């Protein structure tokens, strides 16, 4: 089953010679490719520190941001990433435009393809939406998944990997703990896949049973329901955002009770390794999943994550557009 899913994911995302042409899911991508993304992103970090922050890699290309679901930060960093690659950028908040008028997802995408876009950055509330678009709708446009339902958020996972690598060096000996709403989290799914692919020694997820997916053990991670046991000696601690609506779904009694048992506080952080870094995909609910003193404290690298997010998105955009261009050229030749 895992192999079938993984090969399906690989087939859609990679060119015949193993280069990236869509970036939809960490599943199916080999370690070398993830490392290439991180190395490329690292090189763009240098660009970001320069006074002129642009490179001409995507000059004359068009990147369309298609957000079928709300997002401020992800959309902004994608926009910035595309602009720093010198691409023309079109950002559409599709919730409030055509689909609301009854135009189908299919028609919207076909129209945009007809406008000769080179890449679609897609966020959608349905799991598998990016996969669907890449495999069925517009396979010749590079699709970058900016989050699909509960399924995947691969650029978030890769910016987290970059942040970990820049702070901790090698992945092999790390213990990484992820706390919170694993069930609904596309971030956690992609993180666990990326951490496993990059060879992390120990991955732990920590949550009450109502927020753990069924058979989560199959993700190749350790499962904890007690925060202290899960945090013990961890090198990297990732707190996930807790959506307020979880209280309505009878998944949790109250924010307070969650904070008391699973909140990342100075007290609970002390259970982790003294040099542990603290990460959060944002936006933060202070006093729900994380204490302000921790979020703003010396161990937090949350703003670093944001900076790395631009570099990772530049890397993925440039790699996928280039892979897509190459495979289109090959199609034309044959």
């Amino acid at each position: 089953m895992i192999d079938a899913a993984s090969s399906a994911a690989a087939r859609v995302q990679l060119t015949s010679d193993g280069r990236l042409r869509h970036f939809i899911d960490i599943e199916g991508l080999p370690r070398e490719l993830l490392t290439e993304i991180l190395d490329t992103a690292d090189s763009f970090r240098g660009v970001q520190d320069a006074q002129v922050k642009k490179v001409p890699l995507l000059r004359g290309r068009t990147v369309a941001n298609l957000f079928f679901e709300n997002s401020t930060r992800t959309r902004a960093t994608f926009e910035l990433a595309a602009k720093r690659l010198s691409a023309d950028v079109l950002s559409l908040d599709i919730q409030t435009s055509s689909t609301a008028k009854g135009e189908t997802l299919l028609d919207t995408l076909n129209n945009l393809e007809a406008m000769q876009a080179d890449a679609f950055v897609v966020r959608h509330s349905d799991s598998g939406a990016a996969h669907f678009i890449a495999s069925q709708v517009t396979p010749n446009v590079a699709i970058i998944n900016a989050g699909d339902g509960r399924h995947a958020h691969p650029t978030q996972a890769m910016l987290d990997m970059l942040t970990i690598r820049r702070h901790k060096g090698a992945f092999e000996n790390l213990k990484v703990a992820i706390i919170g709403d694993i069930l609904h989290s596309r971030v956690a799914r992609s993180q666990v896949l990326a951490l496993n692919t990059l060879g992390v020694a120990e991955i732990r997820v920590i949550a009450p049973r109502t927020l753990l997916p069924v058979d989560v053990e199959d993700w190749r991670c350790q499962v904890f329901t007690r925060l202290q046991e899960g945090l013990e000696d961890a090198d990297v601690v990732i707190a996930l955002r807790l959506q307020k609506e979880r209280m309505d779904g009878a998944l949790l009694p109250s924010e307070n009770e969650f904070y008391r048992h699973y909140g990342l506080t100075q007290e609970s952080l002390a259970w982790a390794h003294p040099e542990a870094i603290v990460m959060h995909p944002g936006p933060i609910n202070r006093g729900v999943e994380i204490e302000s003193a921790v979020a703003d404290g010396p161990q937090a690298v949350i703003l670093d994550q944001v900076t790395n997010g631009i570099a990772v998105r530049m890397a993925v955009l440039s790699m996928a557009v280039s892979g897509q261009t190459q495979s289109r050229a090959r199609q034309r030749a044959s």
Partner: protein
Amino acid sequence: MSADRSPVPASVLLTGARLIDPSRDLDTRADLAILDGRIVAPDHPDAAKLPRHDVSGCVITPGLVDIGAHLREPGPRYKGSLESESAAALAGGYTRIAPRPDTSPVLDSAAHVRTLRDRAAEVDGVRLIPLGALTQGLEGQLLANMAGLKSAGCVALTNLRRPLADTRVLRRCLEYAATFDIPVIFHPEDGALAAGGCAHEGSVASRLGLPGIPATAETTALAQWLLLIEQTGVRAHAAHLSCARSVSLIEEAKQRGLPVTCDVTMAHLHWSDAALGGFDTLFHLQPPLRTRVDRDALRDGIKRGVIDAIVSGHLPHEQAAKMAPFAASEPGMSTLETLWAQGWALVEEGLFDATTLIRCLTSGPAHVLGLESAVLAPDALAELAVFDPAHRWTPADTTLHSAGLNTPLLNQPLNGRCILTLTGGEVRFNANN
């Protein structure tokens, strides 16, 4: 289709086939003589004069019977019509179909049923045995006019997967149906546990981030139904079982003597949730495909006779219905024309024998609907199908009759096909025409 069919009663000697009729414990290699539409003994004086049709290597069975295929009428035509779906049924070897009542309008009154029967007579295809709605509009609040539906020809009532308001309404439905001795067909599902889900809650859905439907959504509802069936004594049939635990619940109920039967769809005998790996919407079904363990338990339930019928779950869709992200796609598969080939493949794999398969496709479902099944016996009006297990073909828009091309078998070479269907003594499908 009524225009191009031959109204002539068939007269033919089918030679060399394997005849399987579970209702008569028949499994033999023999010639089958049909004279003026009726089966006659091979030693009938006129049999020698019949035109011979060599069907060596083929399997002849009574016409197949299905419970719950969606034939899309009355309703929007872009998903199919009685013409297209009836032709698909005949091409699949089916001679009788009990179609779902969730048409538009819903089959909840005698008048609607009579209109449908008039349409069926006009189309003159597969024989329709309507199922009526259990509640008005399938809305789960008010009882449908059950006795009226029965007198209009409904052989059973169902609310499909639509929820009933509460257990009190359920109880009253069963009591009232029992009063008129009308069987009730139910699709066990607890709406709250299944809410928002689109795939089996298990490791595949967890990886794909698809909202899950736990097996307990089926089993808790099934247990509740079984207790109320026991209390009311109604004849009941559990449709589309999907998980291992359901099979054991039915088995226990049967052992206690409850008047209950059950079915499974061919898709659930074939695939498991592993098929969802690439978000393939063609495998978006209700109930969802569950684990291999569940699938194997369903196969075992067929083998041991706990499951009475294998049904199509036929739900034809237009292409756009499946062109969407998984959860947003419409559930269902078009199955009538490929079902026999899939069933025979399971026999060839050794999972159960040919008689068991054919029973589950003919006398099993006929019994559930309280019908006399068609037989391969002298004097019977020919109602039978000839299958060629070695016939290699490719289901495609040019070869399928159904308006629904929503099958994962589309454009895949397949072994086994119905080559000839007779009903009412006439040839109604011939793959060579």
